[in-house]
């Protein structure tokens, strides 16, 4: 049976739910081995966190270079594992770090690369949504071991518990991969909310908030949602840039996207129009975002959202 490698995804020491998604896609192609890169002495702790999804085996490599030298060190060892294991495909989470690791690994391994897949089929065809989600593309890697990055939250994950076998292997990180040094790392400040690109629900605010995100945040919190912002809002300094949804910010594809006071420039649409259900609240009945809304409320977000927040609290109790 052919073998598929997935690069285990962690935020700090916490395994993300993307692992089960990568494993689910990978299991269509072959037996899934998760590759876990951990600091020295912490391999078994990291490996134990990879326990959901159809994962048959875990390969653990311990090195302090992964944290100290980042992308280059991880790609160095991943390429060595590919050479040793000859997998049918390698799947990696599609975020900044994952895409960069995939990029360097593809160069080292002499392999084609596809990024931002929303699905991968048994014959290793990747589905991508391009041009702001307006076009569906199917593509295949035609050279070397296919290296594919898969967007979090895109694949319907099989999250049954798994008890993979664990093997610890040792590889050395070359000096060429230690040229950049990380001196400190701060995890993202989440304020207890889910990560934007992983969240099932995203509630976002734009120009219409006039800089006051309290109604948006309260509504997000009652839904257990992540908070996003339009470029107008982040440019005005009303919300941190890292929360920007749109062409030059994050691309999100949640079950539910609630846009508040966002007119819906193409720039913003490009980052959210593949959301399953779209709700729009805006004072301006002509706001272009209403065109793609499943449910729209023409009204003041400061009137609509507090009532909706109360309504959801009542619904839950």
């Amino acid at each position: 049976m052919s073998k598929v490698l997935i690069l285990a995804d962690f935020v700090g020491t916490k395994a993300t739910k993307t692992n089960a998604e990568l494993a689910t896609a990978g299991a269509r192609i072959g037996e899934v081995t998760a590759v876990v890169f951990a600091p020295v002495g912490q391999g078994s702790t990291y490996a134990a966190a990879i326990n959901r999804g159809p994962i048959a085996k875990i390969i653990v490599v311990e090195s302090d270079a992964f944290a100290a030298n980042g992308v280059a060190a991880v790609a160095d060892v991943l390429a060595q594992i590919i050479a040793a294991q000859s997998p049918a495909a390698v799947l990696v989470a599609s975020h900044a770090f994952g895409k960069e690791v995939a990029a360097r690994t593809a160069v080292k391994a002499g392999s084609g690369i596809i990024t931002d897949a929303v699905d991968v089929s048994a014959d290793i065809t990747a589905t991508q949504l391009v041009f702001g989600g307006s076009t569906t593309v199917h593509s295949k890697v035609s050279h070397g071991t296919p290296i594919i990055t898969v967007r979090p939250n895109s694949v319907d994950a099989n999250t049954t518990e798994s008890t993979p076998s664990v093997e610890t292997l040792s590889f050395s990180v070359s000096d060429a991969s230690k040229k950049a040094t990380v001196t400190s790392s701060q995890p993202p400040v989440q304020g207890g909310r889910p990560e934007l690109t992983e969240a099932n629900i995203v509630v976002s605010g734009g120009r219409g908030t006039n800089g006051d995100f309290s109604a948006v945040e309260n509504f997000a919190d009652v839904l257990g949602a992540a908070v996003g912002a339009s470029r107008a809002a982040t440019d005005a300094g009303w919300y941190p840039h890292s929360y920007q949804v749109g062409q030059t910010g994050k691309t999100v594809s949640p079950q539910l996207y609630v846009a508040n006071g966002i007119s819906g420039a193409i720039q913003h649409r490009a980052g959210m129009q593949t959301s399953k259900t779209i709700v729009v609240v805006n004072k301006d009945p002509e706001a272009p975002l209403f065109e793609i809304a499943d449910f729209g409320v023409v009204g003041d977000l400061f009137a609509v959202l507090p009532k909706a927040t109360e309504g959801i609290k009542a619904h839950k109790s």
Partner: protein
Amino acid sequence: MKIAVCVKQVPDSWAEKKMVNGILDRENVDAVLNDLDEYAVEEALRIAEAHGGNEEGGGNIITVISMGPERATEAVRKALSMGVNDAILVTDPKLAGADALATSAVLAAVIEKGGFDLVICGTESTDARMSVVPAMLAERLNAAQLTFASKVDVDPVAGKVSITRVTEAGVDEMHAQFPCVISVVEKINEPRYPSFKGIMAAKKKTIESRDLVAVGVSAEGAWSLVADATPRPARATGIKVTDDGTGGEQLVSFLAEKKLI
């Protein structure tokens, strides 16, 4: 310092984009300098200006490097009018449909030949949006990778660069010795508008055109191929209500009906 800035000409963000035979149709759309590359050009100028400038005798030279069809000279010219010294455009019909691997191989070959201390890129192009070329360049050039920088400090005497890296995984402080490949996020700076003087000066600056033979790289073709591309159906028009005081409740009912709460 020798600074290379990699830029790409892309279809205007507002233009409707289409695929023809599995390749983005670049001919029939308005094309501009990739927005995110303007931050790279600006950062290169600021780094040079902080350390003697890039005018004659200033000790720094900034070269823009691009790959694309002839018309990409327009995008390159914009970078020149912002104040970059000169430019190299790799243009060859064999490069049509090149993927990120081929693009990075071409750019790396040009950069290597020129010698450099710093290579500065935007984080991604607004057309392909892969965000992989800077990492591939670092790999190919055997240079330090300092990407997704929201702040760059250069010490030319020590040959050292320190950056603040900002991604969804958090904030990292990183440093490395020359040579480095840097990518910068928007927000690192506010790109300048070309001045009239800059636009006039840019007309006299050299854009050296090279084909693949001159670069010394053979075209391998793309290592990933598009099987099909289909426009997605437009979303069906949904329900739209006007808030008469019950908009909030109606919204909750909709979410309950859809089992989203």
